[in-house]
């Protein structure tokens, strides 16, 4: 399916036009193209940065809300909804103060939302719980404003350097971490024509920059002159080194299978060859996921900042905005990992079953017509008692969702899996982490590389993949997963012996009745 959001072309045309209309009219007209390209690149860089920074809020939201659902202890979920619902029978009415009746559409929308998602409920208990007292306007602020408050707090905090710290390194370490983290996003394409930089070997550039932050981590841990940070830094260095190598070998397998070291070409290869990499290299996907979780130091691999034993690990001594930015860079690295997984394995910005859907709606004009029909259907459907009418609407909309949105959806889905892992698994011991990395992941990544070579050299004949091969590989992976999942020690089940040695010397009766038997 065609990518209709050709943003880079639009920006290029616009800047070309501007440059020709301004510089082009002066005696510096031969620099017109240069000015245009500088403007284009600047706009693209700002666009990518703003998109990443804006959409990273979704990560925070997933981290809070999905985690809360897993723990079944959702907290304040009232803020945003309170804008339309109001409390205790008092609806919001701020839109009535807007001039020239501009608030009327908002009032209409508000009434609709109140009607459909308001306080009324069939269940009396529900109704009673939702009918809250009105406690003033401050309770109605959306929760996202808390982020601004936190940012302000970090900004105004005192910057303290420990007396015996290595001050220069201590000051430099956060900048190494933050700048290298932000630079990762220069090479992450958001679609085939929304990217900040696209050198020939962007994969190498990007992974090189991804590997810089561990230095900053180790600098921070060492220079703080604190045993906790030092331990955290050492653990971090050991862990990141151990997992960097399988990660790079796994990424090498992607380069092999795609025949390119350019990220955009790796992404496009999945689209043109018709099969996402996860179906060709499921082992590689698993390796990439595990190593990336370890690289961004999330549970179960967050030994470097194990808060139960190391206070806060290598960043214990940092405070204020430097701490805030390092925390943000943790999330940025995480976001980068999710985006890279989506780009490398989940078909990047391709819509799932995109070809099938465009087969159903072959004509772009038809799509636009269908949008109109869909909007009308949506209006009817919301008003009716039969939301089944809404069913075709997503199908229509789904075909015009821009590729960037697909990429972001996939990245958010991956982050949900990160959160799921974090909520489920234990933090594992440092030596176990290293053993797992060196003795399992490294050989497995070499096996994965061999599979990639085999696929590229023996199977792929140019054009599209024969569908039998990815199907077979996926089936084998699923079967292996199920076999591993059924792994259960039958003898232990039959023995029913207690864990650890907790027997007393004379066992005695388990219960008073035991004497009778």
């Amino acid at each position, binding site marked *: 399916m065609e990518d209709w959001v050709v943003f880079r072309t639009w920006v290029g045309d616009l800047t070309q036009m501007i440059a020709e209309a301004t510089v082009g009219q002066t005696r510096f007209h031969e620099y017109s193209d240069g000015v245009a390209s500088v403007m284009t690149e600047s706009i693209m860089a700002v666009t990518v940065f703003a998109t990443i920074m804006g959409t990273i809020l979704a990560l925070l939201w997933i981290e809070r809300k*999905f985690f809360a*659902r*897993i*723990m*079944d202890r*959702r*907290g*304040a*979920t*009232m803020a945003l*909804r*309170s804008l339309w*619902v109001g409390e205790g029978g008092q609806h919001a009415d701020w839109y009535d103060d807007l001039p020239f009746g501009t608030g009327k559409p908002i009032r209409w929308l508000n009434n609709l939302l109140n009607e*459909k*998602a*308001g*306080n*009324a*409920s*069939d*269940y*009396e*208990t*529900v109704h*009673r*719980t*939702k009918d*809250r*007292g009105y*406690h003033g306007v401050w*309770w109605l602020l959306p929760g996202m404003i808390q982020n601004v408050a936190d940012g302000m707090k970090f900004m105004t905090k005192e910057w303290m350097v420990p007396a015996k710290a290595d001050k220069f390194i201590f000051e430099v370490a956060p900048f190494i971490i933050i700048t290298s983290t932000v630079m990762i996003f220069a090479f992450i394409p958001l679609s085939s024509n929304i990217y900040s930089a696209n050198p020939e070997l962007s994969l190498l550039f990007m992974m090189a920059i991804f590997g810089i932050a561990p230095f900053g981590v180790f600098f921070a841990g060492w220079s703080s002159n604190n045993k906790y940070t030092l331990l955290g830094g050492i653990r971090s260095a050991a862990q990141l080194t151990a997992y960097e190598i399988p990660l790079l070998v796994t990424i090498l397998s992607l380069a092999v299978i795609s025949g390119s070291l350019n990220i955009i070409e790796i992404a496009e290869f999945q689209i043109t060859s018709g099969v996402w990499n996860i179906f060709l290299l499921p082992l590689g996907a698993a390796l990439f996921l595990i190593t990336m979780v370890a690289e961004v130091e999330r549970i179960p691999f967050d030994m470097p900042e194990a808060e139960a034993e190391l206070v806060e690990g290598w960043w214990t001594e940092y405070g204020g905005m430097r701490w805030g930015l390092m925390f943000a860079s943790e999330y940025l690295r995480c976001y980068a990992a999710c985006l890279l997984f989506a780009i490398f394995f989940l078909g990047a910005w391709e819509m799932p079953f995109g070809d099938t859907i465009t087969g159903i709606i072959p004509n772009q004009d038809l799509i636009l017509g269908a949008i109109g029909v869909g909007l009308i259907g949506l209006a009817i459907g919301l008003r009716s*008692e039969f*939301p089944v009418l809404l069913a075709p609407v997503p199908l229509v909309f789904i075909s015009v969702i821009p590729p960037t949105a697909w990429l972001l959806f996939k990245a958010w889905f991956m982050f949900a899996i990160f959160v*799921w*892992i974090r*909520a*489920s*698994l*234990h933090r594992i011991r440092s030596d176990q982490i290293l053993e797992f990395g060196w003795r399992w992941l490294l050989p497995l990544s070499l096996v994965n590389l061999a599979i990639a070579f085999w696929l590229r050299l023996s199977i792929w004949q140019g054009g599209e993949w024969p569908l039998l091969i990815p199907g077979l590989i996926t089936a084998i992976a699923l079967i292996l997963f199920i076999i*591993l*999942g*059924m*792994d*259960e*020690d039958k003898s*232990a*089940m039959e*023995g*029913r*012996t*207690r*864990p*650890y*040695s907790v027997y007393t010397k004379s066992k005695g009766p388990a219960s008073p009745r035991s004497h009778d038997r």
Partner: protein
Amino acid sequence: MPFHPHAQPNFRNMVIRPMWMALKAALRTIPYVGSHKLLAAHGTSAPYHAQEAQMIDEGTAARIGEDHPSVGKRYAVDRETSSLVPYLERPVTVMYPYERLEDLEPWLFVPGNYNGRIGVIWETCTACKACVKACPNSCLHMETETRVNVLDTTEEGDEWHGMGTELEVGGMAARRNEVDNSDHNLILDHSAVPQEYDFGSVIDITGETATVRWDGGGMEEVPAADLAPAEVDIMSGRIDIGRCMFCGLCMEACPFESFFMTNEYDGMSGYSREDLWYEADRTRVLPSVHQERVDAELVKRAEKELKKRERAKARAEA
């Protein structure tokens, strides 16, 4: 080493099972999806959430009564919205100081045996200090003073003679001593005024002589006429709730059922540590709240008093 089957460190137990459990918990919170039978509670087929509302204990059920709107309703309060758009979220936050959970979801309310704020029925307290001795954190402070009631100091021929209490075995007794405290200088002497009485506890009364163990030491038989009955009065009963760990040993130590751990969880905050020093008035439990306890204690004491008077009457007749 033998492992418990679910403690085997294998892929199934370390990864698959915990992840499935976490996902199940998350899916259960979603309307419609959460009521699928795959996600039912272990060993049942009913939806995990959206079950009948059941009060946590009989006390709560009795407290909210039969007419309460939540009786017989589904436990679905924080799971469901309107029928059309069930996935939109509703507020589930109880804005605590303004709203209280027990008003919204009484079946989640604190059970009766929860150790909350300390409450004392001062009306039935005898100042035995069993609670003070029991407290491991020494957060209870009780100051008492042994005193002679002014009614007991009357002499033969006074208008109010005979209206006071009588000397009794097990009680306190006081004897006026020879101390002359008339020239005690209240302004310059940095010490308490010497007591005009020696205090002791009555061990035995035979006829007109009473056996007294003096607080200062020594046992003595003295004529009962020289003695006046004394009593222990509570000067202050202060509880430092900031040091309290709510273990409830004080409540268990109380022989008169005057000391309670209520199940109230609020009203224990303040702006300073001094705010957490509860004087007697802040720990007071009104008799109306624990009327049964107070009534029982009063009946007990009234019967004791009646018996005593009957005995005294019989002795007088004999």
